């Protein structure tokens, strides 16, 4: 006896879990949400459902943005913010990446530093601002140091974990091929962890952006964060929103660039 055939049901493949979508659909869906977002925003503000004192409309925001560039030299603020982020971030990376690799490779060093770094990692970078103003004044150094404190411990810990979780069998294979301990670090641990380290840097750069705005909200005479505080006192929500959107756009661009660079440098890891 044969089992009764299951009823033929047309399967909607696009709704199946993990089913990939075409690049074009992906692009359109991604853009779609932005369109939806601006539409809802426009309906609420232009439709008079929200008072313009609390939330500017997309049109006002765009006009204020134009004014910022033409009248208030906003490009200078953007430049200052970008330089602070990259200054602090690069300083943190230059120190934390080599030290993190050393921690990951040498368990003694890790045991020595890891508890302290884990503790520091939870210290909020923004809470250091008053202290840093005392120590470093309200100049550039103070802003760069906020970014540095916010990034350095995160990079350290994550790089140490990435290097420490290297494949043991690859290390053993290298030993049987005659590698010495220094060769293991240079030619097995570092190249093996490199794609992950690059991803960590991309992630932490994103966080650095959030610290810089906080740093600029206090004791600052330039930068996107400073512009936002200024606009707040004038109740200019259009400028505030424009500033936030600019930060988002710069973050998106640097993230794309970082991703593209990582893909090029570490083609083997995405095979």
């Amino acid at each position, binding site marked *: 006896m044969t089992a009764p055939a299951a009823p033929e049901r047309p399967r909607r493949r696009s709704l199946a879990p993990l089913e990939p979508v075409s690049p074009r659909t992906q692009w359109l869906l991604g853009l779609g949400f932005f369109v939806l977002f601006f539409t809802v925003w426009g309906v609420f503000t232009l439709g008079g459902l929200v008072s313009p004192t609390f939330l500017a409309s997309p049109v006002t925001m765009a006009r204020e943005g134009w004014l910022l560039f033409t009248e208030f030299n906003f490009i200078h603020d953007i430049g200052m913010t970008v330089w602070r982020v990259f200054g602090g971030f690069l300083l943190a990376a230059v120190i934390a990446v080599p030290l993190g690799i050393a921690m990951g490779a040498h368990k003694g060093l890790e045991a020595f530093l890891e508890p302290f770094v884990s503790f520091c990692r939870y210290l909020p970078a923004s809470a250091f601002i008053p202290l840093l103003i005392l120590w470093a004044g309200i100049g550039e150094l103070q802003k760069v140091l906020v970014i540095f404190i916010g990034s350095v411990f995160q990079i350290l810990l994550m790089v140490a974990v990435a290097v420490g979780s290297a494949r043991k069998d690859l290390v053993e294979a290298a030993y*049987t*091929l005659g590698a*010495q301990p220094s060769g293991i670090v240079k030619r097995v641990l570092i190249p093996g962890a490199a794609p992950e380290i690059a991803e960590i840097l991309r992630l932490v750069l994103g966080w650095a952006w959030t610290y810089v705005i906080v740093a600029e909200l206090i004791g600052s005479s330039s930068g996107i964060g400073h512009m936002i505080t200024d606009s707040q006192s004038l109740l200019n929500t259009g400028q505030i929103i424009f500033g936030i959107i600019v930060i988002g756009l710069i973050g998106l661009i640097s993230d794309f660039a970082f991703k593209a660079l990582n893909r090029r440098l570490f083609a083997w890891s995405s095979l």
Partner: protein
Amino acid sequence: MKNQLSIRGVSRVFVSPKGQKTQALTPVDFDVRENDFVTILGPSGCGKSTLLRIVAGLDHPTAGTVLLDGQKVEGPGADRGMVFQSYTLFPWLTIEQNIRFGLRERGMPEAQQKERADYFIAKVGLRGFEQHFPKQLSGGMQQRTAIARALANDPKILLLDEPFGALDNQTRVLMQELLLGIWESAQKTVLFVTHDIDEAIFMANRVAVFSARPGRIKTEIAVNFPHPRHYTIKTSPEFMAIKAQLTEEIRAESMAADVH
């Protein structure tokens, strides 16, 4: 021919973090002559891999010593090449760079590295794949690269830990013939660990049968088929007779292992 590898009273006790002791190897005495091809056959978990790792210097014996050409083995080194069961090619290096890894570590001049790598790439039939990354190759090709990488270093002894264990049956048979062909043309001392009886007989001049844990060498059987060997010997009555004998030996050990 002289003994190249001497294993003298090597035992290994593993101690768990809770202090529980497991005897993986009871004292083993074993010798391998120069240019001999010896297989170690045993049920899984019998400690045969532990013995191989101790010879490689990747693990330390609890007691006893391993001597290679009279020199005590203290740690891993380029004089003992190893091929692992898992795929251990460096994923960030191309096939050619993988094969050159050991030569580069040793500081051999570029041109010489290239020449040696080319020779072994041809030997394992990977011409045309030099610039591929390991992930672009099949499991069999990756293990061929691993063999070439170990041989390019010109070790005194080649250690293989179930190198074809993860491959499908057809590929495994071809790999056995390839490795045996290489051994027949370029004499080399080989110590090969496997749980596959056919593989153990076909490859070896001598099969050492391991007992169930705690491991020790229970019997040794000489395999006197002439070289070069053709795969058709696997169906010969002589081969079948050895296989029948080894099957009994291994069966007893697997059952013993199951009781524990």
